C-alpha cells in the first residue's frame, strides 16, 4: 500500500474537477460512508441516454474526493449503457494505486453514487 498519494490523486483532491452544484439536474443522490463520515452528493444531466453534465459536492478524504473528481471527468459524454459497465476494477485502475481493504470503501463511494444515478 505504498504511496497511494500520487501526484494525480493529490491534484484531484486539492483541485477537484466538476465540484459544485447543478441547478436543474435530471437526478441527484447523496451517499455516505458511515465509517468515516464521508458524504458525496452527485447530480447529473442526461440528454436522452447521454450525460451532458455531472457535478459533485461533499466532504471526504483524498481518496474519495479524487475518485469522485476523476470519475465525473470520465463519465461526461458517455451513455447510460457505457456507464453501467463501470465496476470496482475500473475505479481501481482509474486511480492507479493499490488500496487496502479499508480504504477501498473510500474509493468506491463515488461509484455507489453513480450507480444510483443510472
Amino acid at each position, binding site marked *: *500500500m505504498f504511496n*497511494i*498519494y500520487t501526484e494525480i490523486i493529490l491534484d484531484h483532491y486539492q483541485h477537484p474537477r466538476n465540484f459544485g452544484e447543478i441547478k436543474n439536474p435530471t437526478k441527484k443522490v447523496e451517499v455516505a460512508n458511515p465509517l*468515516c*463520515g*464521508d458524504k458525496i452528493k452527485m447530480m447529473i444531466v442526461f440528454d436522452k441516454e447521454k450525460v451532458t453534465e455531472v457535478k459533485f459536492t461533499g466532504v471526504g*478524504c*483524498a481518496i474519495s474526493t479524487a475518485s469522485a473528481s476523476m470519475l465525473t471527468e470520465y463519465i461526461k459524454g458517455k451513455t447510460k449503457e457505457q456507464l453501467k459497465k463501470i465496476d470496482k476494477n475500473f475505479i481501481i485502475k482509474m486511480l492507479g494505486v493499490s488500496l487496502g481493504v479499508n480504504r477501498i470503501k473510500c474509493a468506491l463511494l463515488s461509484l455507489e453514487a453513480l450507480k444510483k444515478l443510472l
Partner: protein
Amino acid sequence: MINVLKIKKDFPIFENNPSLVYLDSTATSLKPRPVIEKLVEYYSKYSANIFRGVYSLSEKATKEYEKTREKIAKFINGKKEEIIFTRNTTEGLNLLAYSLGRKIIEKNDEIVTTIMEHHSNFVPWQILAQESGAVFKVININQSGDLDLYCKNIKIKKSKCKMTMQNSKLINLNNIITKKTKILTLTYISNVLGTVNPIKEIVMVAKKINPKVIVIVDAAQAAPHKKIDVLDLGVDFLAFSSHKMLGPTGVGVLWGKYDLLCEMFPFNFGGEMIAEVFLDKTFFKDPPYKFEAGTPAIAEVIALSEAVSYLEKIGLEKIEAYEKELVQLAYQRLKEEFGKNIKILGEGNIKERSGILAFNFYNLHPHDVAQILSEKNICLRSGHHCAQPLHQFLGVSSSCRASFYFYNDKDDVEKLVEGLKEVKIKFKL
C-alpha cells in the same frame, strides 16, 4: 519510575516490529509475554473444559479459571461471586440493558447517559428507551471537555464553576437525576477526550437525589490505566474488557452488586447456567454462573490473570501518573510544532486527562493523516471511534486519535511529530 526500554522487552511484538510506534492502545493494548505464554500453557498442558469433568485436567482448568475470578475481584475490590465473565465491555453493558433494563424500566421512567459515551454504552439504552417508552436523557459536555453537570441536559451552556474531584458539592444533577431516574450509566474515561469523570462524586450526588438510581460505569478505558475500587466509587455495576488491559481478546468483566445480580434475568440460556431443568420449568444457578452460559473463553480468562499480575507489578498509580505526563508532553510538542493547525478535541482538560489525544490536522481527513503515518509504522486510529454523538456535538465528522500506554515514551511522541511533518509536506501545506 517506569523503565520503558525494559518494559518493551516484555512485549514480543516489538521484537517482531522493531520500528513500531503503537499509539492505539485505546482500541486494544499490546500483550506481554506472560499473557501469551499462559494461553499456550492452557492449550498445551490442561486444555479441558471447566466445571464438567471430574478428571484432573478439567479440575486444573477450573481451578485456574476461578483463580482469575478471585484475582479480578481483588483487583477492583469486589467479591468473587460478583464477577461475571463476558466477551467484552460491550457484552457486559448489553447484558445489563437486557437482564436489568428490561426488568425494571417502564414507560416514562428515565435512563440517563452522557454525550461522551462509546456507542456500546449509548445504543443499548437508547433502544431500551424506545422500546419501553422511557425518557432517554443525555448529559452534554462543556467547552473544556468535562461533563456539563451544571446545566439542564441537552441545552448547551458554558459552565461557570470549575469542577473539582474533591468537592461533590459543586456537582449539580438537579434536572438530570429525578425520582423517575432508574438508571444512570456513564463512562469513567472518555475514549475520545480522555476526560476522567468524577464517578464517586457523581454517584454521591445522584443517590442523594434518588437513592434508588442504579449507577452503571463503563470502565473499558479506566481499568487499564487507573486503580479502581468499586466500593469506594459507590457504583452498582462496572464493566471492562481484558484486551485493553494487556489481556487476551474475547473476555470482558462485568461486576455487579450481588443482590442486584440475584434479581436479574439470565442473559443467555444453556449449559452451565442451570441448576435443574424439567419438562415444564428450569431453575438457574446463582450468580455469577447464572450469567455464564456455554463454554466460555477459558484460555483467555486464565491468561487475563497474568495481565492483572503484570499491571499490579508495575502499579496502576504509577501507570496513571506516567501517562498523564506523556500525554501532556505530546500536547505541548504538537502545539509547538503545529499551533492552530492541530485541533485537539476537548483541549481544556489537558492537565487532568488520561493518555488520549484526539485531534484534527489542518483540514485533512483523518484517514489521510493516519494512512501516511502508517507508512512510517505509526499506528493511530482515524474515524469517529464509536462515538458519533460526541463528534456530532463537537461539529466534526471524525478525528485522529493517538493514545498512550506505559510502553510508549518520548520517542514515540517525537516520531508522531515527525510523521505529521511529513503529512504536511505530502499535502504541500
